[in-house]
């Protein structure tokens, strides 16, 4: 009990009074783009959870956590998906979930932010910066953004796949998320 209270007390100063806890709606768009044989191909993340405790006036006090269930990633073809889940690629048996933990959000322009944090993917952790836009009417919100990763930084497409001969090294992640207040659901 004391521990719970302690945690609670610790967190209070971090959360400004008018911060709202937002959560992604499942029907949003969360995709990854990769070039296969020089042709851009888009896959979808079918299952993810985005939690955003956000006060636009104090973005630096926000908390953002994104987790993506890689077992629900979909390139639109069962053969390609089975390769995607393979140890050389996502290795979903060992690393089913990728997590982004935001450490710092800064506002670059009205409605525009950069979220800096760590991305944990396939057992590796790296710092990434994610530019995003945010708009909200109070009960619903939209969070959009895209950023590029180098897949080999996370050992995705390892060994014989680690050259860009057939499958490009740069992967663009794009999200267009509808968010609602977490409490209201």
């Amino acid at each position, binding site marked *: 009990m004391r521990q719970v209270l302690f945690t609670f007390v610790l967190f209070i100063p971090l959360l400004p009074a008018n911060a709202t806890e937002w959560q992604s709606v499942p029907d949003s768009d969360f995709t990854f783009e990769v070039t296969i044989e020089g042709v851009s191909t888009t896959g979808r993340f079918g299952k993810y959870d985005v939690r955003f405790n956000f006060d636009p006036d104090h973005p630096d006090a926000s908390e953002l956590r994104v987790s993506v269930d890689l077992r629900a990633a979909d390139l*639109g073809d069962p053969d390609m998906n089975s390769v995607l889940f393979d140890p050389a690629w996502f290795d979903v048996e060992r690393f089913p979930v990728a997590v982004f933990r935001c450490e710092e959000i800064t506002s670059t322009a009205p409605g525009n932010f950069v979220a800096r944090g760590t991305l944990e993917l396939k057992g590796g952790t790296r710092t990434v910066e994610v530019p995003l836009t945010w708009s909200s009417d109070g009960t619903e919100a939209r969070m959009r953004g895209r950023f590029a990763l180098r897949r080999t930084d996370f050992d995705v497409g390892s060994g*014989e796949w680690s050259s860009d001969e*057939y499958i490009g090294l740069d992967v663009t992640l794009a999200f267009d998320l509808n968010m609602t207040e977490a409490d209201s659901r």
Partner: protein
Amino acid sequence: MLRNSRYAWGRIAIAFHWLLAALIFVQFALGWTAVEVQVSPQKLGLFIWHKSVGVSILLLVLLRLGWRLGNEIPAAAAGLTVLEKRLARAGHGLLYLLMLAVPLTGWWISDTSRIPFRLFRLLPAPDLLPADRAMSELAARIHGTLTTLLLIVIGIHVAAALRHHFLLHNETLRRMFSLRVES
């Protein structure tokens, strides 16, 4: 002599024949290896070459058919029965049909699957049909069956050519090497 005559194949027809024979041989090897190899960059590479060679074969067969239509067909060797001539004509017709149908069904698999492909890794292939798993599996079955059929017909074609040369002692095989051009 580039054009055919009443008695002999011209150099163009002979070149078409042996070029296609070589490409079809390479194509069987590429296709079988590509299917057998486990998923890897090599497998992707083999399929890209298989598809590229397939498109080349299709174009060459069309050119060859055009050339054939604009040329005289040398007469069959003397001493063949009407039935033998009919069988030869049917066999050659079937060869042409399969040389068109096998690459076309191959294209059908590629076009209805989701794996992008550039001809010889240079030219993006036109995407004519929507990706459709059931369609691409059906196309793959037809492609496989027609390939087996093509292999059988090629076997008969080779056996018939050898029969002409070694048993009937006529010029049918020799004239495809342009070894004996008589007029």
